[in-house]
């Protein structure tokens, strides 16, 4: 699987114009100050933002093609997006959050639940499976959000500032977690962060971004 994209999104404050190809299993970090369009890029790939120009291809599927006026709907794209604020559904437990994507695709309740447990276990939060999402700590909710995205077996993983909600001492553990249980040889990963240290520690390739364009 390979992510092949040229994303052009015009905003009042900036124009995002980024050509980015991520190979199977590659981890690319987009690094830049707040407001340069990093999140906009992730949302464009996930389909939450429409392209003004360019294209997004994932494997042999065309998700977006501005010239051909193609825009695949968000729910069909098979993108795993972990939001900066995690956005766990507050009326559901951790396990129900992880099972959500599977249930939405028609997987039966028991199978979805078993699968969700497995992912919670891999990410080290199995003991919180029945905890309401609102009662999880920042670090726990991040792991649940990761599990929720991964449980749907997405074709690409998009991580938006995965360390923003964590205190500094928790970072090494999350780095290890991502390397061991989240990154694999197949799925391309785009990681957005404003911290160059996190980027170089985790990514195969760092792409600095300044006001919508790759920095020199």
């Amino acid at each position, binding site marked *: 699987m390979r992510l092949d994209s040229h994303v052009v999104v015009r905003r009042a404050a900036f124009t995002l114009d980024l050509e980015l190809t991520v190979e199977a299993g590659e981890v690319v970090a987009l690094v830049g100050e707040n407001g340069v369009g990093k999140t906009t890029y992730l949302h464009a790939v*996930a*389909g*939450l933002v429409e392209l003004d120009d360019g294209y997004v291809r994932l494997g042999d599927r065309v998700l977006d093609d501005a010239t051909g006026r193609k825009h695949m*709907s*968000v*729910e*069909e*794209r*098979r*993108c*795993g*997006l972990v*939001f900066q*604020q995690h*956005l766990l*559904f*507050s*009326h559901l437990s951790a396990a129900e959050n992880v099972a*959500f*994507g599977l*249930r*939405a*695709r028609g997987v039966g309740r028991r199978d979805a639940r078993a699968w969700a447990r497995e992912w919670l276990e891999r990410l080290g939060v199995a003991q919180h499976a029945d905890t309401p999402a*609102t009662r999880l700590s920042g670090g726990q909710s991040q792991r649940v959000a990761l599990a*929720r*995205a991964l449980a*749907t077996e997405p074709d690409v993983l998009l991580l938006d500032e995965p360390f923003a909600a964590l205190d500094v001492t928790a970072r090494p553990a999350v780095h290890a977690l991502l390397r061991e249980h989240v990154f694999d040889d197949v799925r391309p990963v785009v990681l957005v962060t404003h911290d160059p240290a996190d980027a170089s520690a985790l990514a195969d390739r760092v792409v600095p971004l300044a006001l919508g364009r790759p920095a020199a």
Partner: protein
Amino acid sequence: MSAPAGSDVFMTDRTRSGHETTSPAPRVARRRRAPLPLLVPAALGFLFLVAPFVALLVRSPWGDLGSLVTSQGALQALWLSLRTATAATVVCLILGVPLAWVLARTSFPGQNLVRSIVTLPLVMPPVVGGVALLSLLGRRGLLGSLLDTAFGFTVPFTTLAVVIAETFVALPFLVLSVDGSLRSADLRYEQAAAVLGASPWYVFRRVTLPLVGPSVAAGGLLSFARALGEFGATITFAGNFPGTTQTMPLAIYLAMQDDPSTALALSLVLMAVSLAVLIGLRSRWVSGLIGVAS
């Protein structure tokens, strides 16, 4: 009337008291003495609202209350009122939640006009609503004449007409409440659900509805209360037949002519039901849910 955020209109007081318990500062600030030019009208205003209820309580025929309230006519009217108001609330929920969703989540030409029309029954005299319903569904009405010739079926002066009249006046309460809460809800949760592969219909059922559930509950309770008290549209469109269209408000009005003590007793019953609705709106259950949603 460009729709106000419905839930805000109805829930200001609760949010304020919630705020008070969490932070001590405003409580101290609110303890200051009110200036006389504000205090006097405020006290008068409160008295104005509460005095009639006190009079109602004082004048109520407490001794005969049991027998008056359980008389056949009273029970019939109460039972009819509860049935029709419940049915109207159900119809309001089935039609009103989707209507609120379309108003809040889509954009189309004339949307503000649609929103104004939805709120029209709020500001219109209910008796006008009754006349309007008759023009549509009456035996000689636009639609009613068709129903009459095609199926020999007439709506006015039936229990169905009561439900229709009550729904007509109660629907705006539900739509406003849910529309306001949908528009202030955090869209990102719905986006997160869509990214996970959920269809728009699945997102609505599993994310949006739980998110605005408290407003749906509050709007439903308000609709029920409004339907229960409906008088003008009902008597115009459905008439005043004991057992089929004579709801509590109609029975009270009729009793007032020749049997005031029955009217007082029935009024007490309606007042108790309204109080129950009010307590429902303020209960821990509803406000707890509201706390989650906001």
